[in-house]
Structures are given as structure tokens and as C-alpha cells.
């Protein structure tokens, strides 16, 4: 199969060795090709503009831009590009945030490669690659996939992707000012997100919030 007929993929992972491994394995497949590799999501938009991939394989725990925010931006600018998350962690919080922000699938790095390839092909064929119990938590409403409001909803599932991101950065120890810098928003906006998420979680202070974020797998301990 010529390169022109192969499905173009962009790999985003902060570990070079992981990117290399993924690339070498994907390129063994006759119908897949890796167009670009990125150590962070910051330049993803520009790279997509240049290479027009059909699929983006993206890690979650990376320095730099928030992957979930990036998916939402990407969906707006390039609705045809399908993003699949490839994470070392299998977590409800991450998976829910992935569905909510517009990803097509979620794969564990721990899975054997043929499972990963199967998921990639499933998404390319127009199916979602999430565990069924994750999709069961969602509904199609108002033109979008939203978290179902059920009795058993955990407080964290009520957070917006932006609130989740602010929570992740708070738990990483960043100050409001620093978070504002990272997310290119005003400290006032960040404060509003923080107040809102703390209210939703019924948490009063930063330390408790950090503990909660670790328990929920939003950040690494």
C-alpha cells in the first residue's frame, strides 16, 4: 500500500521511547503510517493543520497543554480527526473526561499491542473504543454526549473538563496565578472555576482537594 493510501496518525507522548515503540509497531501495519510525533499537546493544532492526520493517539499525563482541552479545540477546528487516548492508567475520571471532551476511544498502554491496534481500527471504522460500562454513563442530549445525571453520580463526574483541569493543576501545587498562566486565562476566571469545583465537591481547602484528586486518579501521588 502506498503511503498516500495509508491512514495518517499523529502520536503525542512525552516519553520518547514510548513514541518510538508506538511508531515502529504501527508502521509494521501496511495500512497505517505515523505522520508526526509530539512530546506534548501544545503544538498539536499546527501539526494537524500541516499533516491532516485521520487519527491522533494521545497520552494524558504530560507536561504542557491539557489534553482534554486540546481534544475539544481539535474537534472544533478539525471535526474529522479522531482522537484516541493512550494512557498508562485505566481510570474512570480519565475515561469520563475523554468521552466528554470528544475522544473516540481510550486504550491502556498496558494492553498487548494487538488490543491497541484493534481499538485503533475500530475507531477508524466509525465505532467508539470505550468499555461499555463507560458509555453507559453517558447519554446523547442536546446534540452532545453528556454524563447522565443518576443517583449514583459521583461528585467528580459533575465537573466540567475545564474544572477538572484546574483541579489537576491545583493538586499539582500550582498557584492561581500559575494556573492562569498555563491555561491562558485570567486569575479571576481560574478562581471562579476553583470556587465552582470546590462547591461541587463539597471541599473547603486546597489540601483536601489535593487528597481527593489523588484518590480520584486526577494526579499522581
Amino acid at each position, binding site marked *: 500500500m502506498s503511503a498516500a493510501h495509508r491512514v495518517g496518525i499523529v502520536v503525542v507522548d512525552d516519553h520518547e521511547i514510548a513514541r518510538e515503540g508506538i511508531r515502529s509497531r504501527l508502521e509494521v501495519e501496511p495500512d497505517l503510517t505515523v505522520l508526526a510525533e509530539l512530546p506534548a499537546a501544545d503544538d498539536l493544532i499546527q501539526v494537524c493543520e500541516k499533516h491532516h492526520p485521520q487519527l491522533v493517539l494521545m497520552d494524558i499525563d504530560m507536561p504542557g497543554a491539557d489534553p482534554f482541552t486540546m481534544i475539544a479545540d481539535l474537534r472544533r477546528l478539525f471535526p474529522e480527526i479522531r482522537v484516541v487516548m493512550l494512557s498508562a492508567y*485505566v481510570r474512570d475520571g480519565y475515561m469520563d473526561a475523554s468521552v466528554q471532551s470528544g475522544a473516540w476511544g481510550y486504550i491502556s498502554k498496558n494492553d498487548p499491542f494487538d488490543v491497541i491496534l484493534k481499538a485503533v481500527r475500530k475507531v477508524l471504522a466509525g465505532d467508539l473504543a470505550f468499555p461499555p460500562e463507560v*458509555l453507559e*454513563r453517558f*447519554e*446523547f442530549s442536546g446534540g452532545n454526549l453528556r454524563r447522565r445525571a443518576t443517583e*449514583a453520580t*459521583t461528585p467528580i463526574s459533575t465537573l466540567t473538563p475545564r474544572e477538572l483541569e484546574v483541579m489537576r493543576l491545583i493538586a499539582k501545587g500550582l498557584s492561581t496565578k500559575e494556573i492562569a498562566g498555563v491555561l491562558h486565562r485570567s486569575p479571576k476566571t481560574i478562581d471562579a472555576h476553583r470556587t465552582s469545583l470546590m462547591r461541587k*465537591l463539597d*471541599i473547603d481547602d486546597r489540601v483536601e482537594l489535593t487528597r481527593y484528586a489523588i484518590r480520584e*486518579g486526577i494526579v499522581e501521588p
Partner: protein
Amino acid sequence: MNDAIRHDPALRPEAVSAELERLILDTADEGFCLFSAPDSRIIAFNQRFVDIFGFDPQWANTEPTVEAVAEAIYERQRNRHPDRAEHIQRVLKRHEAPGGREMELELLSGRFVVGRTQAARGGERLYTFRDVTSERRILDQLQAERQRLASLVEHAPVAMYIINCATGMTTQVSRSIRNVSGHEAESFMGPSIDWERHVHPDDRALVRRTISDAIAGQHFYDIDYRYIRPDGTVRWVRDTAGPLPVAEGMEPQLVGVVMDLTRQKTAERELRQSERRFRELIEGVSDFIFYEHDVDRKLTYVSPSVERMLGYGADELLGHRFGEFHPDHVAADLARARESVAAAIETRRRQPQYEVVLRRKSGEPVLCEIMEYPVVAKGEVTGFHGVARDVTALRDIQQRLRERERLAILGTFAGGLAHDLNNLLLPIRAGLDVLERDPAPSKVASRVNSIRRATDHIAELTKKLLMWTRHEASQPSAFSTTATDIRSWVQEALPFYQDAVVAPEGEGAIEVRLDLRDPPRQAKIDGGLLKQAILNLFLNARDSMTSGGTITLIVDRSPAGWAAAVEPLAAAASPGEYKGVDRASLPGVRFTVTDEGCGMDESVLQRAFDPFFSTKSRGKSTGLGLALVGSIVRSAGGQVQIRSRLGQGTSITVDVPALDRPSRPEPLRLGADGERMAPGARMLIGLRDPRVAAFVRTGLVAAGVEARTGAGQPEADDAAWIIDPDLHGPEAVAAVLESRADLAVIALGPRDDRPGWPGAILWLDGSVNALTFRSIVDAARQRNRFKGRDE
């Protein structure tokens, strides 16, 4: 004649000489009457005269004699002489020899009148009468007040006294002086100066001087001094005195009040001491600033420690707000301060403490913990007391401590992990070396196989490690939506366990026995995780039974109240997670895995759940097996208990929260009643957003029907068409239905207003989720669209 006289109608001006006119003028507003010299008849009088006595002016104009007038007045008098004749004689006698004392008359009308007689040079007699009724009444009231006061002084609960200023004698002292001074009232009577024998020697000069001056000048005084009581104890008193109004004929007096002030003085002294201690405290500390500010956050007091903490003098800050001097203060921090003050003013309550970054004069940041207390007066917040504490160093130490703890934990982890990884890297390196040196095809397969085994082992290790860290830090998810049907889980898991515990060659055979009793219907735990946890128990059991034996799995209902004992669960619960849940009545599923192995001694039992603890050789065990069981079960809100004795086997019990009701709808069953979905019949999902289409397809497939996605028109095999009203216009849909009357069309979204939609369309408004996928299928089926080709 002056106007006053000329205009008095009762006056006969022609009879009045110039001298008389002057005398009359002196009478001012008094009443008068003038008797002629030769015959002592009235020749002039004024209106006031007739008014005072109530005479008829006509009668006065008849020029009555002095005797007739005396008679008339006698008639109107209350304090008259008992003998009328005698009275008249006295009046006539006075008429003959005018002057002398004024006479005071009390009239029957209640008036008091003072009368005076004067003689003119021509022998006329001028009688003047002054009405003193109101003066007399005031004097009477004054007398009554004095009597009441005297009585009060005698019996008042606080001690009162009266000093006669003329004599310097104390004339009255209330008995209650005894309560104050300890001495009887009598001992204060007499020369007031004698009081001082009861006064504390240090205060005597003050008392003597003050009271002497006040008596001499008849003015107020107010002094505090001490009495020495007969028992030697000392009492503080406040002595306040002032002059009584002096009436005519009365001697000037001072009235005073003595109050016991001992308690107040003691309290004042304690307050002063406490204030001094507090001041010493707040001025001595260096990492606290005490301050006060108004509702506008402008500082009204700052403790001197501000200089040490922020480098500013207290004077520099008064009238300003914290943070005003450095423009690079974090705006959010200042906004927080503003919000806190606004909230405190609104609620009149203390707000939670918060942290802000202030700046030293040099610009260096200082992390301060702020606690402010609103000062409320008459229901309004008038200002704030605040404490700002420098927590820069504290937070730094806490941060370092956390880092150190993390490093210590990481060290333990990394040590074990590095050891295992090195062991696994060895065969990989060796295999690669061999492949490089001898790439003979015959060797490749076996080398690749050995590398794959090693990498599989690494993957297994990292998987467990990640699961362990994940669950160790996770919140209990006992109330999550995940639920596992116990009976089907057991059916699926048991063969897996039987395969897993097959004894290695040369070891005794292992038998697995299941004892399924009466467990609740479902467990609130992920089935996969539960399988992993119980597998680890089986593997542990197998490893302890080198000579073979039986492993028993008992599945039963947890004893009532099991969850009440699960301490870590409640403690680790995330906020809001377990509100209102009665933990004692929570049902549970109990899994017990019992082996006939070598058992554990006390020291091994103690560490059995520690990560990387293993009694087996490295490479044979990751040391994460039981640690993982513990973390999975705890994170599900359950508990693990272990019982073991060396040489007698081990029994591990796992309790997890249960559900007695089905948590999901029954899976959709198509078939059995002739409504089987025909082979090849499917649904076409034509939604604008391919991701949403994929979502709907996944749901429909899970609900038991075949479905495909596509923006094109339905094919012959498509029995139902799910449309997006925005994507497919009414005309396009109508056109399709014209040739496909058997097609069920389901529109996702609110009913579209555009005309031309065929009536056969089913509009599915609202949200579409795992539960409503079934309604979509039902809706399509009810329209009898799914007709099997073979029917």
C-alpha cells in the same frame, strides 16, 4: 402720671400726688390700695388688688374705710386670728403706725399673700400685697423632698450621708455604710473630718483635702479611696458628693454617696494586667501581626511585630490597606480579602481563614494565613480584629516533609521494582545479544519467545503496580454504579481459578471446591477487579500448598453489621460521599478462600498486606498480590480479614458491599415470541456527528440489534432509519418513505416545525442513553417494521 396708672380704670388719678405716684410705681406688679389721710378711706387701688382678694371693684369704688377693708380681708383669710375684734384692732394699730414686719396671709382661695404698709408724707397709707403662692409651694415641696432624702439616706442600700457645711458636722449617714466600710453609721456622725480614721492611711490626705475644700466652697467632689474594715481588710469606695439647693433659712449642706468599688477595682486591675500581658505578647511575637481595620479594610491598629514581619513601621501602614504598597500583589489574593470582608459584613460572622501572599517592604513575598473577626456593634459590623501569621517557612517545611515522605515511599517501591525489572531485563538483553550474534532462523523463534515472556512479566508487574497505587489512593467506590451479578460471576470465575492453581509438576495435586450458599444478588464491585482479587488469594493458597490439598471458596452473605467495623472506609470517604447512609444496615457479600497450606506465623501475618513483602523468592513473586487484594477491596468499600496458624493453613475473608435489587434493566430479548429480529434486518443511523452516531450504534448493538452508520439513504436491509432532523429535510425523508412504506423512521430531537414531515415518523425527544436504546428498538418493533424475510 404714668400710663400704667392713668389707664387703670379703678384708679382715681386726681387724688394722687406726685410722691404717691412714685410709691405706686414701685409696687410694680403687686396689688395696692391707697387710704386717704383724714378719714382712712380708699382713694385709689389697682385691678391686681381686687383680683388677689376677689373683691368687687364696685365695692372698692365706694371708698370703704380701712376697717371695712380689714373686715373684708378677715372674711377671706384662712390663718386669721380667732377673735375678729382683736384682729381688726391689730390692723388699725398697724394703720396708725405703718412699716414693720410684712404680714403673711393665707387666703381661703389657697393663695399666699404678703402685705406691707407704708405712709406718705401727706399722711396717706399705701398697702401693697404680693402674691407668693407659687414660691410657697416650691418651698413646701423642697421641704418634703428633704424629708424623703433623709429617709432614703437612712435606709438606702448604698451608703449616703449629709454634711452641714456651716458646722462641718456629718448630720446623717445611712446604716448601710456598715456594709461598705465595716463601721457603724454612728462612728461617722459628728465632725466630718473624723471619718478619716477609717480611711486607708495612704488616702487620708486626699480625703481630708477634698472634703474640706468641698465644704468650704460648697462644690462637688468625686474621689476613690480605701476604707480599712475592722477585720483589717481593705475596701475600695467611690465617694461622690455635691451641695443641696439652699433655701432661705436653711444652712448649706453636702449630700454624698459612698459605693463599694472593690470588685470593679479588682476587675480593672486584672484587666490592666491582662492587657499588659496581651500587649507584651503581641508586641513580642515576630511571626504574627495583630491588626484592626475598618469596614473599608483601612488599618486602624497594627502590632509592632509588623516591622519584623513586613519591614514596614506600624505608622506607615495605619490608614492604608495591606497590599496597597506593592502593585504586583496577586490580584486574586486581594480579591479574596475583599470577598471575605464583604461576606463577614453581610453575615456578621467570622469567615474561614485563608492564605494570601503579602510583600515585605523589600518586595520579598510572605505567605500569610489570615484570620479575621468582625466587631459587631448594634447589629452592624464596625470593623475587624485580625491575625496575620507568616506561614512561609511552615508551608516550606510541610512541602519538604511531604516530599521526603514521598521519596521514602518511592524508595521502597523503586527498590523492589528495580530489582524485579533488572531480573526481567536480563533475559531480554541476553536474547537480543544472541539474536544479533546468531540470527539463524532456527534460534529466532525460541529467543523471541523468551523475550516475549520477560516483557509479559514486566507488563504484569507494572499492571499490578499501577492497580495497587490506583486503589491505594482511591476513594471507596462502594456506591458506584458498577455491580456484579454474583452467581454468573462465580460460574465464569471458577474454571479460571481451577486452571490457575494447577500444581507444577512434582507437587501434590490441588483440588478446588466451591460452597455457594446464600449470597446477595449483586456485589458493588467491578467484576474484573473482584476476579483479580480472588485470583490472588487462590495463587497465594496454591503457593502455600506444595504437597497439594483443597482450596475452598465459600460465597455467602456477610454477617449483619459487618460494614460498621470497616473503619478506614468511613475515614477515607470523600466529602459528601456517604452522607445519610446507614452503614450498619449495608448488606455485603462474603468470599472466603481457605487453604490447607503451611500457614503463616505472627510476624508474617502482620506484614501480609504490605506491598513488596513476600516470603517467596524474588522472581517467583512480585510481593504485590495481597497488597493488591487489600487495595481493591478497600477501594470498593469492603474489608479483608486474614486468619492463619503456622502449619494449619490460612483463611482469608473478603466482604464487599452488596445490592439486593437489580441495578440494570433486564437485557433486551428479541425472539421466542415470534418477534425475532430477522437475519440481515438492521437499523441505519444517519446522524450528523459521526461520534454520536457511533455512540448510538454501540448502544443499539448492546440492546441486541444490528445497526450501521451512514449519511446515505437506507438500503433494502435497513428496516429502521434513525435520522437527524437537521441533516435530513422533510422532503428527502418523504421521498424515501414513498418507495419504502415498510421503513420505520425515528427522528432524534424535538419535533421539527417545518411542514412536509411524513406523519409516520416517530419523534424521540429528550436524551438517548443505555436505557432508551431499548425504547428505540421497541418503538421500531411496535410499528411492525421488523418483518423477517422468512415470515
